Protein backbone atom coordinates (compact mmCIF):
# COMPACT_ATOMS: atom_id res chain seq x y z
CA UNK A 1 0.00 0.00 0.00
CA UNK A 2 1.34 3.44 -0.87
CA UNK A 3 2.21 5.87 1.91
CA UNK A 4 -0.66 8.13 2.90
CA UNK A 5 -0.20 11.85 3.48
CA UNK A 6 0.16 13.12 7.05
CA UNK A 7 -0.63 16.73 6.11
CA UNK A 8 -2.66 19.03 8.37
CA UNK A 9 -5.27 21.09 6.52
CA UNK A 10 -5.57 24.05 8.89
CA UNK A 11 -2.53 23.97 11.21
CA UNK A 12 -3.42 27.39 12.62
CA UNK A 13 -6.66 26.08 14.15
CA UNK A 14 -5.84 22.39 14.53
CA UNK A 15 -2.59 22.91 16.46
CA UNK A 16 -3.45 25.82 18.78
CA UNK A 17 -2.11 25.61 22.32
CA UNK A 18 -4.91 25.17 24.81
CA UNK A 19 -4.86 28.64 26.36
CA UNK A 20 -5.07 30.31 22.93
CA UNK A 21 -7.78 27.86 21.93
CA UNK A 22 -9.82 28.60 25.05
CA UNK A 23 -9.51 32.33 24.50
CA UNK A 24 -10.81 31.88 20.94
CA UNK A 25 -13.61 29.57 22.16
CA UNK A 26 -14.82 32.02 24.79
CA UNK A 27 -14.83 34.89 22.32
CA UNK A 28 -16.79 32.84 19.80
CA UNK A 29 -19.17 31.48 22.43
CA UNK A 30 -20.09 34.99 23.59
CA UNK A 31 -20.65 36.18 20.04
CA UNK A 32 -22.88 33.16 19.40
CA UNK A 33 -24.86 33.69 22.60
CA UNK A 34 -25.51 37.31 21.61
CA UNK A 35 -26.96 36.05 18.35
CA UNK A 36 -29.15 33.29 19.79
CA UNK A 37 -30.53 35.75 22.32
CA UNK A 38 -32.94 36.78 19.55
CA UNK A 39 -34.29 33.26 19.02
CA UNK A 40 -37.60 32.97 20.93
CA UNK A 41 -36.94 29.35 21.92
CA UNK A 42 -33.67 30.31 23.61
CA UNK A 43 -35.14 33.43 25.21
CA UNK A 44 -37.76 31.22 26.79
CA UNK A 45 -35.33 28.46 27.81
CA UNK A 46 -32.85 30.88 29.38
CA UNK A 47 -35.60 32.69 31.21
CA UNK A 48 -36.99 29.43 32.58
CA UNK A 49 -33.52 28.44 33.75
CA UNK A 50 -33.03 31.88 35.29
CA UNK A 51 -29.86 32.64 33.38
CA UNK A 52 -28.88 35.42 31.06
CA UNK A 53 -26.16 35.41 28.42
CA UNK A 54 -24.53 38.13 30.53
CA UNK A 55 -23.86 35.51 33.21
CA UNK A 56 -21.41 33.71 30.93
CA UNK A 57 -17.90 34.97 31.61
CA UNK A 58 -15.82 31.79 31.34
CA UNK A 59 -16.07 28.52 29.48
CA UNK A 60 -17.03 26.78 32.72
CA UNK A 61 -20.08 29.06 32.93
CA UNK A 62 -21.46 27.17 29.93
CA UNK A 63 -22.79 24.57 32.38
CA UNK A 64 -25.23 27.18 33.68
CA UNK A 65 -27.12 27.15 30.39
CA UNK A 66 -29.94 24.69 29.70
CA UNK A 67 -29.58 21.86 27.20
CA UNK A 68 -31.08 21.87 23.73
CA UNK A 69 -32.64 18.61 22.53
CA UNK A 70 -34.05 17.09 19.38
CA UNK A 71 -37.44 17.73 20.93
CA UNK A 72 -36.75 21.50 20.82
CA UNK A 73 -36.07 21.21 17.11
CA UNK A 74 -39.32 19.29 16.61
CA UNK A 75 -41.34 21.82 18.62
CA UNK A 76 -39.92 24.64 16.52
CA UNK A 77 -40.35 22.79 13.23
CA UNK A 78 -39.38 23.78 10.65
CA UNK A 79 -37.50 27.09 10.99
CA UNK A 80 -38.20 28.24 14.54
CA UNK A 81 -34.62 27.72 15.77
CA UNK A 82 -32.99 29.68 12.95
CA UNK A 83 -30.97 32.67 14.14
CA UNK A 84 -30.87 34.45 10.77
CA UNK A 85 -33.60 35.59 8.37
CA UNK A 86 -34.39 33.20 5.47
CA UNK A 87 -32.83 35.76 3.13
CA UNK A 88 -29.44 34.72 4.50
CA UNK A 89 -30.09 30.97 4.32
CA UNK A 90 -28.79 29.29 1.17
CA UNK A 91 -29.32 25.63 2.01
CA UNK A 92 -31.71 23.43 3.97
CA UNK A 93 -30.89 19.93 5.19
CA UNK A 94 -32.71 17.60 7.51
CA UNK A 95 -32.39 14.40 9.48
CA UNK A 96 -33.71 11.12 8.14
CA UNK A 97 -36.54 11.50 10.67
CA UNK A 98 -37.77 7.93 10.95
CA UNK A 99 -40.00 8.89 13.86
CA UNK A 100 -42.31 11.89 13.62
CA UNK A 101 -41.26 15.11 11.97
CA UNK A 102 -37.70 15.39 10.72
CA UNK A 103 -35.39 17.99 12.21
CA UNK A 104 -34.52 20.84 9.89
CA UNK A 105 -31.23 22.75 9.73
CA UNK A 106 -30.09 25.68 7.59
CA UNK A 107 -26.80 27.04 6.31
CA UNK A 108 -25.74 30.53 5.31
CA UNK A 109 -23.17 30.95 2.54
CA UNK A 110 -20.47 31.30 5.22
CA UNK A 111 -21.76 28.17 6.99
CA UNK A 112 -21.35 26.17 3.80
CA UNK A 113 -17.77 27.46 3.39
CA UNK A 114 -16.97 26.65 7.01
CA UNK A 115 -18.49 23.20 6.61
CA UNK A 116 -16.33 22.48 3.56
CA UNK A 117 -13.26 23.49 5.53
CA UNK A 118 -14.16 21.24 8.46
CA UNK A 119 -14.65 18.24 6.21
CA UNK A 120 -11.41 19.05 4.39
CA UNK A 121 -9.69 18.88 7.78
CA UNK A 122 -10.72 15.31 8.58
CA UNK A 123 -10.36 14.10 5.02
CA UNK A 124 -6.80 15.48 4.99
CA UNK A 125 -6.23 13.85 8.38
CA UNK A 126 -7.25 10.53 6.79
CA UNK A 127 -4.60 11.02 4.11
CA UNK A 128 -6.78 12.32 1.26
CA UNK A 129 -4.89 14.68 -1.10
CA UNK A 130 -5.54 16.53 -4.37
CA UNK A 131 -4.39 13.50 -6.39
CA UNK A 132 -7.12 11.29 -4.96
CA UNK A 133 -10.30 10.17 -6.67
CA UNK A 134 -13.07 10.16 -4.09
CA UNK A 135 -16.10 7.90 -4.62
CA UNK A 136 -19.07 9.07 -2.54
CA UNK A 137 -21.67 6.36 -1.99
CA UNK A 138 -23.79 8.23 0.56
CA UNK A 139 -27.22 9.16 -0.75
CA UNK A 140 -27.43 12.74 -2.03
CA UNK A 141 -30.51 14.50 -0.74
CA UNK A 142 -31.80 16.05 2.44
CA UNK A 143 -29.28 14.05 4.45
CA UNK A 144 -26.00 15.87 5.12
CA UNK A 145 -23.51 13.04 4.55
CA UNK A 146 -22.95 13.11 0.81
CA UNK A 147 -22.83 16.89 0.39
CA UNK A 148 -20.45 17.39 3.30
CA UNK A 149 -17.88 14.92 2.04
CA UNK A 150 -18.38 16.21 -1.50
CA UNK A 151 -17.52 19.81 -0.54
CA UNK A 152 -14.57 18.80 1.60
CA UNK A 153 -13.04 16.64 -1.12
CA UNK A 154 -13.50 19.34 -3.74
CA UNK A 155 -11.90 21.93 -1.47
CA UNK A 156 -8.87 19.66 -1.09
CA UNK A 157 -8.80 19.40 -4.88
CA UNK A 158 -9.58 15.69 -5.17
CA UNK A 159 -11.65 14.41 -8.08
CA UNK A 160 -15.13 13.71 -6.71
CA UNK A 161 -17.39 10.96 -8.05
CA UNK A 162 -20.88 11.85 -6.73
CA UNK A 163 -22.10 8.28 -7.03
CA UNK A 164 -24.88 8.40 -4.40
CA UNK A 165 -26.34 5.19 -2.92
CA UNK A 166 -27.75 1.99 -4.37
CA UNK A 167 -27.06 -0.37 -7.26
CA UNK A 168 -24.06 -2.17 -5.83
CA UNK A 169 -22.86 -3.79 -9.06
CA UNK A 170 -22.81 -0.46 -10.82
CA UNK A 171 -20.96 1.06 -7.85
CA UNK A 172 -18.31 -1.63 -8.22
CA UNK A 173 -17.97 -1.06 -11.95
CA UNK A 174 -17.47 2.68 -11.44
CA UNK A 175 -15.11 2.20 -8.49
CA UNK A 176 -13.04 -0.09 -10.68
CA UNK A 177 -13.17 1.75 -14.01
CA UNK A 178 -12.78 5.28 -12.63
CA UNK A 179 -9.93 4.18 -10.40
CA UNK A 180 -11.28 5.55 -7.10
CA UNK A 181 -8.61 5.78 -4.38
CA UNK A 182 -10.87 6.90 -1.52
CA UNK A 183 -14.27 5.47 -0.60
CA UNK A 184 -16.98 7.28 1.35
CA UNK A 185 -19.93 5.24 2.64
CA UNK A 186 -21.32 3.57 5.76
CA UNK A 187 -19.09 0.83 7.23
CA UNK A 188 -21.74 -1.82 6.64
CA UNK A 189 -21.93 -0.85 2.99
CA UNK A 190 -18.15 -1.26 2.68
CA UNK A 191 -18.68 -4.91 3.62
CA UNK A 192 -21.56 -5.25 1.20
CA UNK A 193 -19.19 -4.09 -1.53
CA UNK A 194 -16.54 -6.62 -0.46
CA UNK A 195 -19.16 -9.40 -0.42
CA UNK A 196 -20.41 -8.54 -3.85
CA UNK A 197 -16.92 -8.30 -5.37
CA UNK A 198 -16.23 -11.77 -3.99
CA UNK A 199 -19.46 -13.13 -5.39
CA UNK A 200 -18.51 -11.68 -8.76
CA UNK A 201 -15.44 -13.91 -8.55
CA UNK A 202 -12.79 -11.26 -7.76
CA UNK A 203 -10.47 -10.65 -4.84
CA UNK A 204 -11.64 -7.45 -3.10
CA UNK A 205 -8.10 -6.90 -1.78
CA UNK A 206 -6.69 -6.32 -5.24
CA UNK A 207 -9.65 -5.67 -7.54
CA UNK A 208 -9.95 -1.93 -6.79
CA UNK A 209 -7.39 0.90 -6.48
CA UNK A 210 -8.70 2.05 -3.07
CA UNK A 211 -6.21 3.24 -0.43
CA UNK A 212 -8.45 4.73 2.20
CA UNK A 213 -12.06 4.65 3.32
CA UNK A 214 -13.90 7.36 5.26
CA UNK A 215 -16.79 5.67 6.98
CA UNK A 216 -19.58 7.20 8.99
CA UNK A 217 -23.33 7.46 9.40
CA UNK A 218 -23.59 4.61 11.92
CA UNK A 219 -21.59 3.41 14.93
CA UNK A 220 -19.05 0.69 14.23
CA UNK A 221 -16.60 -1.31 16.31
CA UNK A 222 -12.84 -1.81 16.10
CA UNK A 223 -13.60 -5.36 14.97
CA UNK A 224 -15.54 -4.07 12.00
CA UNK A 225 -12.64 -1.72 11.20
CA UNK A 226 -10.18 -4.63 11.14
CA UNK A 227 -12.53 -6.63 8.95
CA UNK A 228 -12.97 -3.80 6.44
CA UNK A 229 -9.23 -3.03 6.36
CA UNK A 230 -8.36 -6.66 5.80
CA UNK A 231 -10.99 -7.48 3.24
CA UNK A 232 -10.59 -4.36 1.11
CA UNK A 233 -6.88 -3.84 1.87
CA UNK A 234 -7.40 -0.17 2.80
CA UNK A 235 -6.99 2.13 5.79
CA UNK A 236 -10.45 2.60 7.31
CA UNK A 237 -11.04 5.86 9.20
CA UNK A 238 -13.94 7.06 11.27
CA UNK A 239 -15.46 10.51 11.41
CA UNK A 240 -18.28 11.97 13.38
CA UNK A 241 -21.05 14.44 12.89
CA UNK A 242 -24.80 14.78 13.14
CA UNK A 243 -27.15 16.68 10.92
CA UNK A 244 -28.26 19.00 13.75
CA UNK A 245 -24.63 20.09 14.23
CA UNK A 246 -23.33 20.84 10.71
CA UNK A 247 -23.35 17.17 9.54
CA UNK A 248 -20.06 15.32 9.01
CA UNK A 249 -17.18 17.56 10.08
CA UNK A 250 -17.57 17.71 13.84
CA UNK A 251 -14.67 15.32 14.39
CA UNK A 252 -12.49 12.91 12.48
CA UNK A 253 -9.61 10.50 12.89
CA UNK A 254 -6.05 11.11 11.81
CA UNK A 255 -3.91 8.22 10.62
CA UNK A 256 -2.89 7.47 14.23
CA UNK A 257 -6.44 6.11 14.59
CA UNK A 258 -6.59 6.79 18.31
CA UNK A 259 -9.74 8.82 18.52
CA UNK A 260 -11.48 11.46 16.47
CA UNK A 261 -10.19 15.02 16.79
CA UNK A 262 -13.07 17.34 17.61
CA UNK A 263 -12.71 20.66 15.83
CA UNK A 264 -12.91 22.59 19.06
CA UNK A 265 -12.53 26.01 17.50
CA UNK A 266 -16.04 25.36 16.07
CA UNK A 267 -17.64 23.08 18.64
CA UNK A 268 -17.43 23.07 22.44
CA UNK A 269 -17.64 19.48 23.67
CA UNK A 270 -18.86 18.43 27.12
CA UNK A 271 -19.44 14.97 28.56
CA UNK A 272 -22.44 14.63 30.83
CA UNK A 273 -24.15 11.96 32.86
CA UNK A 274 -27.20 11.26 30.66
CA UNK A 275 -29.39 10.57 33.69
CA UNK A 276 -28.61 13.66 35.76
CA UNK A 277 -27.25 16.10 33.19
CA UNK A 278 -24.21 16.72 35.41
CA UNK A 279 -20.96 17.60 33.59
CA UNK A 280 -18.38 14.84 34.05
CA UNK A 281 -14.63 15.38 34.48
CA UNK A 282 -12.27 14.83 31.51
CA UNK A 283 -11.77 11.15 30.63
CA UNK A 284 -15.14 9.99 31.97
CA UNK A 285 -17.54 8.10 29.74
CA UNK A 286 -20.89 9.75 29.15
CA UNK A 287 -23.11 11.55 26.68
CA UNK A 288 -21.52 14.05 24.33
CA UNK A 289 -23.00 17.54 24.40
CA UNK A 290 -21.97 20.03 21.72
CA UNK A 291 -22.25 23.80 21.43
CA UNK A 292 -21.87 25.22 17.97
CA UNK A 293 -19.83 28.43 18.37
CA UNK A 294 -19.32 29.43 14.76
CA UNK A 295 -22.44 28.58 12.82
CA UNK A 296 -24.71 31.42 11.79
CA UNK A 297 -27.98 29.88 10.62
CA UNK A 298 -28.79 27.54 13.48
CA UNK A 299 -26.21 27.57 16.27
CA UNK A 300 -27.30 25.05 18.88
CA UNK A 301 -26.37 25.60 22.53
CA UNK A 302 -25.49 22.53 24.61
CA UNK A 303 -27.12 20.15 22.19
CA UNK A 304 -27.57 16.64 23.56
CA UNK A 305 -26.21 14.27 20.91
CA UNK A 306 -27.32 11.12 22.80
CA UNK A 307 -24.03 9.57 21.68
CA UNK A 308 -21.96 7.93 24.40
CA UNK A 309 -18.22 8.50 24.23
CA UNK A 310 -15.16 9.62 26.17
CA UNK A 311 -12.77 12.53 25.56
CA UNK A 312 -8.97 12.37 25.63
CA UNK A 313 -7.02 15.57 26.19
CA UNK A 314 -3.46 14.19 25.98
CA UNK A 315 -1.76 15.23 22.78
CA UNK A 316 -1.86 13.05 19.69
CA UNK A 317 1.31 12.10 17.81
CA UNK A 318 -0.03 13.69 14.64
CA UNK A 319 0.65 17.18 16.04
CA UNK A 320 -2.96 18.28 16.37
CA UNK A 321 -3.75 19.67 19.81
CA UNK A 322 -7.49 19.09 19.50
CA UNK A 323 -9.26 16.81 21.98
CA UNK A 324 -9.99 13.30 20.74
CA UNK A 325 -13.29 11.44 21.21
CA UNK A 326 -13.60 7.65 21.24
CA UNK A 327 -15.71 5.88 18.67
CA UNK A 328 -19.28 6.27 19.87
CA UNK A 329 -20.22 3.38 22.13
CA UNK A 330 -23.90 3.44 21.41
CA UNK A 331 -26.54 5.99 22.25
CA UNK A 332 -27.88 7.04 25.57
CA UNK A 333 -31.40 6.66 24.25
CA UNK A 334 -31.24 3.43 22.25
CA UNK A 335 -28.98 1.63 24.62
CA UNK A 336 -30.75 -1.68 25.08
CA UNK A 337 -31.91 -2.63 28.50
CA UNK A 338 -32.59 -6.36 28.51
CA UNK A 339 -33.60 -8.03 31.75
CA UNK A 340 -32.26 -4.91 33.43
CA UNK A 341 -28.83 -5.29 31.84
CA UNK A 342 -27.46 -2.41 29.76
CA UNK A 343 -26.36 -3.78 26.42
CA UNK A 344 -24.73 -1.91 23.57
CA UNK A 345 -24.99 -3.66 20.21
CA UNK A 346 -21.30 -2.96 19.60
CA UNK A 347 -20.43 -5.22 22.56
CA UNK A 348 -22.13 -8.10 20.79
CA UNK A 349 -20.40 -7.21 17.55
CA UNK A 350 -17.03 -7.44 19.29
CA UNK A 351 -17.81 -10.96 20.51
CA UNK A 352 -18.81 -12.09 17.03
CA UNK A 353 -15.58 -10.71 15.60
CA UNK A 354 -13.47 -12.65 18.07
CA UNK A 355 -14.71 -15.85 16.48
CA UNK A 356 -12.59 -16.93 13.57
CA UNK A 357 -14.42 -16.46 10.29
CA UNK A 358 -17.52 -14.95 11.80
CA UNK A 359 -18.82 -12.13 9.65
CA UNK A 360 -20.52 -9.11 11.11
CA UNK A 361 -23.84 -9.74 9.47
CA UNK A 362 -25.97 -10.11 12.53
CA UNK A 363 -29.22 -8.87 13.94
CA UNK A 364 -30.53 -8.59 17.48
CA UNK A 365 -34.13 -9.52 18.13
CA UNK A 366 -35.53 -8.60 21.52
CA UNK A 367 -38.89 -9.96 22.60
CA UNK A 368 -40.89 -10.17 25.77
CA UNK A 369 -42.31 -13.52 26.79
CA UNK A 370 -44.70 -12.81 29.66
CA UNK A 371 -42.61 -10.47 31.77
CA UNK A 372 -39.23 -11.81 30.68
CA UNK A 373 -37.13 -10.20 27.99
CA UNK A 374 -35.35 -12.46 25.55
CA UNK A 375 -32.45 -11.60 23.31
CA UNK A 376 -31.80 -13.54 20.15
CA UNK A 377 -28.63 -12.93 18.16
CA UNK A 378 -29.12 -13.95 14.56
CA UNK A 379 -25.87 -14.67 12.76
CA UNK A 380 -25.59 -15.27 9.05
CA UNK A 381 -23.82 -18.52 8.25
CA UNK A 382 -20.89 -18.44 5.86
CA UNK A 383 -18.52 -21.18 4.74
CA UNK A 384 -16.08 -20.53 7.60
CA UNK A 385 -18.64 -21.25 10.28
CA UNK A 386 -20.64 -23.95 8.51
CA UNK A 387 -19.87 -27.55 9.41
CA UNK A 388 -21.17 -30.63 7.69
CA UNK A 389 -21.44 -32.38 11.05
CA UNK A 390 -24.35 -31.40 13.27
CA UNK A 391 -22.24 -32.04 16.38
CA UNK A 392 -19.70 -29.36 15.39
CA UNK A 393 -22.38 -26.96 14.21
CA UNK A 394 -24.14 -27.13 17.55
CA UNK A 395 -20.89 -26.84 19.46
CA UNK A 396 -20.21 -23.65 17.53
CA UNK A 397 -23.57 -22.19 18.54
CA UNK A 398 -23.00 -23.16 22.16
CA UNK A 399 -19.54 -21.61 22.30
CA UNK A 400 -20.91 -18.35 20.87
CA UNK A 401 -23.65 -18.33 23.49
CA UNK A 402 -21.10 -18.91 26.22
CA UNK A 403 -18.90 -16.02 25.05
CA UNK A 404 -21.87 -13.70 24.79
CA UNK A 405 -22.98 -14.59 28.31
CA UNK A 406 -19.50 -13.80 29.63
CA UNK A 407 -19.20 -10.53 27.75
CA UNK A 408 -22.63 -8.99 28.14
CA UNK A 409 -23.65 -10.69 31.37
CA UNK A 410 -26.85 -12.00 29.89
CA UNK A 411 -27.98 -15.19 28.21
CA UNK A 412 -28.59 -14.63 24.53
CA UNK A 413 -29.86 -17.30 22.20
CA UNK A 414 -27.79 -17.59 19.05
CA UNK A 415 -29.70 -18.45 15.92
CA UNK A 416 -27.92 -19.24 12.69
CA UNK A 417 -29.63 -17.93 9.59
CA UNK A 418 -28.97 -18.21 5.88
CA UNK A 419 -26.75 -15.65 4.18
CA UNK A 420 -28.72 -12.56 3.15
CA UNK A 421 -31.54 -13.49 5.54
CA UNK A 422 -30.88 -10.23 7.36
CA UNK A 423 -32.15 -7.27 5.43
CA UNK A 424 -29.39 -4.97 4.32
CA UNK A 425 -30.28 -1.52 3.16
CA UNK A 426 -27.83 -0.03 0.76
CA UNK A 427 -27.03 2.41 3.53
CA UNK A 428 -27.44 1.58 7.19
CA UNK A 429 -27.75 -1.95 8.47
CA UNK A 430 -30.74 -2.37 10.72
CA UNK A 431 -29.24 -4.45 13.48
CA UNK A 432 -31.92 -4.20 16.14
CA UNK A 433 -35.47 -5.43 16.14
CA UNK A 434 -37.14 -4.65 19.43
CA UNK A 435 -40.57 -6.26 19.59
CA UNK A 436 -41.21 -5.39 23.23
CA UNK A 437 -42.94 -2.11 22.53
CA UNK A 438 -46.65 -1.74 22.08
Amino acid sequence: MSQLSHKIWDPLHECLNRSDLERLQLERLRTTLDRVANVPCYQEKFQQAGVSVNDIHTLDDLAKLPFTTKEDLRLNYPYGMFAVPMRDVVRIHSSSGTTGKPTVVGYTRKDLDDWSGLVARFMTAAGVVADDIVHIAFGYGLFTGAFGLHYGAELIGSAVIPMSGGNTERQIMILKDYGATALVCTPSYALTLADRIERMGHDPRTYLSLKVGLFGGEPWSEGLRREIEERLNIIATDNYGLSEIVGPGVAGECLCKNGMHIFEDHFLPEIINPETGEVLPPGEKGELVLTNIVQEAIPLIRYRTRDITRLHYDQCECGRTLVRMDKTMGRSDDMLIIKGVNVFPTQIEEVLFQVEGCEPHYQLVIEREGTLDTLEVQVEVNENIFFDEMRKQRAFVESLEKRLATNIGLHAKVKLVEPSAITRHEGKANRIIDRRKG
Partner: protein
Amino acid sequence: MKVQQISIFIENKSGRLAEVARVLGEKGVNIRALSLADTSDFGILRLIVDNTDVAKDILKASGFTVSKTEVVAVEVPDQPGGLSSILGVLDEAKVNVEYMYAFVERNAGNAVIIFRFDETDDAIKVLQQKGISILPGDHIYGL
Protein backbone atom coordinates in the same frame (compact mmCIF):
# COMPACT_ATOMS: atom_id res chain seq x y z
CA MET B 1 -13.11 -44.91 -3.31
CA LYS B 2 -14.62 -41.72 -1.96
CA VAL B 3 -17.85 -40.06 -2.97
CA GLN B 4 -18.26 -36.28 -3.19
CA GLN B 5 -21.18 -34.91 -1.21
CA ILE B 6 -22.42 -31.37 -0.81
CA SER B 7 -23.89 -30.01 2.40
CA ILE B 8 -26.20 -27.02 2.46
CA PHE B 9 -27.19 -24.88 5.42
CA ILE B 10 -30.92 -24.27 5.45
CA GLU B 11 -33.06 -22.36 7.86
CA ASN B 12 -35.90 -24.29 9.35
CA LYS B 13 -38.70 -22.46 7.61
CA SER B 14 -41.10 -23.38 4.89
CA GLY B 15 -39.99 -23.42 1.29
CA ARG B 16 -36.22 -23.66 1.78
CA LEU B 17 -35.90 -27.35 0.79
CA ALA B 18 -38.15 -26.72 -2.17
CA GLU B 19 -35.93 -23.84 -3.18
CA VAL B 20 -32.82 -26.06 -3.22
CA ALA B 21 -34.64 -28.64 -5.33
CA ARG B 22 -35.98 -25.99 -7.67
CA VAL B 23 -32.59 -24.35 -8.26
CA LEU B 24 -30.92 -27.70 -8.98
CA GLY B 25 -33.77 -28.97 -11.17
CA GLU B 26 -33.76 -25.82 -13.24
CA LYS B 27 -30.11 -26.33 -14.13
CA GLY B 28 -30.58 -30.05 -14.89
CA VAL B 29 -28.76 -31.36 -11.82
CA ASN B 30 -30.03 -34.76 -10.72
CA ILE B 31 -30.15 -35.72 -7.05
CA ARG B 32 -28.96 -39.28 -6.36
CA ALA B 33 -29.28 -39.42 -2.60
CA LEU B 34 -30.15 -37.06 0.20
CA SER B 35 -30.41 -36.78 3.94
CA LEU B 36 -31.46 -34.02 6.26
CA ALA B 37 -30.30 -33.44 9.81
CA ASP B 38 -32.21 -30.79 11.62
CA THR B 39 -32.68 -28.85 14.83
CA SER B 40 -35.57 -26.56 15.65
CA ASP B 41 -33.75 -23.62 14.05
CA PHE B 42 -31.80 -24.97 11.13
CA GLY B 43 -30.99 -28.06 9.13
CA ILE B 44 -28.04 -29.46 7.24
CA LEU B 45 -29.06 -30.95 3.93
CA ARG B 46 -26.62 -33.44 2.40
CA LEU B 47 -26.86 -34.32 -1.25
CA ILE B 48 -25.10 -36.59 -3.68
CA VAL B 49 -25.75 -35.38 -7.20
CA ASP B 50 -24.63 -36.27 -10.69
CA ASN B 51 -22.43 -33.16 -10.96
CA THR B 52 -21.09 -31.99 -7.61
CA ASP B 53 -19.14 -28.93 -8.74
CA VAL B 54 -21.92 -27.54 -10.89
CA ALA B 55 -24.44 -28.05 -8.09
CA LYS B 56 -22.16 -26.32 -5.58
CA ASP B 57 -21.69 -23.30 -7.83
CA ILE B 58 -25.39 -22.97 -8.62
CA LEU B 59 -26.38 -23.11 -4.97
CA LYS B 60 -23.70 -20.62 -3.93
CA ALA B 61 -24.82 -18.23 -6.65
CA SER B 62 -28.36 -18.55 -5.28
CA GLY B 63 -27.14 -17.38 -1.91
CA PHE B 64 -26.82 -20.68 -0.02
CA THR B 65 -23.91 -21.60 2.20
CA VAL B 66 -22.49 -24.81 0.77
CA SER B 67 -19.59 -27.10 1.60
CA LYS B 68 -18.15 -30.15 -0.10
CA THR B 69 -17.32 -33.28 1.91
CA GLU B 70 -16.12 -36.77 1.19
CA VAL B 71 -18.18 -39.74 2.19
CA VAL B 72 -17.98 -43.48 1.59
CA ALA B 73 -20.69 -45.53 -0.16
CA VAL B 74 -20.97 -49.14 0.95
CA GLU B 75 -23.06 -51.78 -0.77
CA VAL B 76 -25.08 -53.99 1.53
CA PRO B 77 -27.15 -57.02 0.56
CA ASP B 78 -30.81 -56.06 0.95
CA GLN B 79 -31.59 -58.69 3.58
CA PRO B 80 -31.95 -58.92 7.36
CA GLY B 81 -28.63 -58.51 9.17
CA GLY B 82 -26.96 -56.75 6.23
CA LEU B 83 -26.41 -53.46 8.04
CA SER B 84 -25.59 -55.07 11.33
CA SER B 85 -22.62 -56.97 9.94
CA ILE B 86 -21.05 -53.80 8.57
CA LEU B 87 -21.59 -51.79 11.72
CA GLY B 88 -20.08 -54.68 13.66
CA VAL B 89 -16.92 -54.47 11.59
CA LEU B 90 -16.62 -50.73 12.11
CA ASP B 91 -17.29 -51.01 15.81
CA GLU B 92 -14.67 -53.70 16.25
CA ALA B 93 -12.07 -51.54 14.51
CA LYS B 94 -13.12 -48.53 16.62
CA VAL B 95 -13.99 -46.48 13.56
CA ASN B 96 -16.15 -43.52 14.49
CA VAL B 97 -19.19 -42.81 12.32
CA GLU B 98 -20.24 -39.14 12.24
CA TYR B 99 -23.50 -39.93 10.47
CA MET B 100 -24.97 -42.27 7.89
CA TYR B 101 -27.96 -42.63 5.64
CA ALA B 102 -29.20 -45.29 3.24
CA PHE B 103 -31.12 -45.84 0.04
CA VAL B 104 -31.92 -48.82 -2.17
CA GLU B 105 -30.22 -49.19 -5.52
CA ARG B 106 -32.71 -49.21 -8.36
CA ASN B 107 -31.35 -51.98 -10.58
CA ALA B 108 -29.33 -54.30 -8.36
CA GLY B 109 -31.80 -54.20 -5.49
CA ASN B 110 -28.98 -53.80 -2.98
CA ALA B 111 -28.99 -51.21 -0.25
CA VAL B 112 -26.39 -48.44 -0.38
CA ILE B 113 -25.24 -46.85 2.85
CA ILE B 114 -23.50 -43.52 2.83
CA PHE B 115 -21.06 -43.08 5.72
CA ARG B 116 -19.34 -39.97 6.96
CA PHE B 117 -16.33 -40.96 9.05
CA ASP B 118 -13.99 -39.02 11.28
CA GLU B 119 -11.03 -40.67 9.54
CA THR B 120 -12.17 -41.53 6.06
CA ASP B 121 -8.96 -43.19 4.81
CA ASP B 122 -8.61 -45.43 7.86
CA ALA B 123 -12.25 -46.47 7.57
CA ILE B 124 -11.83 -47.40 3.91
CA LYS B 125 -8.86 -49.60 4.81
CA VAL B 126 -10.85 -51.43 7.48
CA LEU B 127 -13.80 -52.04 5.14
CA GLN B 128 -11.56 -53.26 2.33
CA GLN B 129 -9.72 -55.66 4.63
CA LYS B 130 -13.05 -57.22 5.56
CA GLY B 131 -14.00 -57.57 1.91
CA ILE B 132 -16.93 -55.16 2.12
CA SER B 133 -17.96 -53.73 -1.23
CA ILE B 134 -17.26 -50.00 -1.54
CA LEU B 135 -18.91 -48.25 -4.46
CA PRO B 136 -16.77 -45.67 -6.31
CA GLY B 137 -18.07 -42.13 -6.78
CA ASP B 138 -18.73 -42.51 -10.49
CA HIS B 139 -21.03 -45.43 -9.78
CA ILE B 140 -23.17 -43.39 -7.41
CA TYR B 141 -23.26 -40.22 -9.56
CA GLY B 142 -24.42 -42.33 -12.52
CA LEU B 143 -27.13 -44.29 -10.73
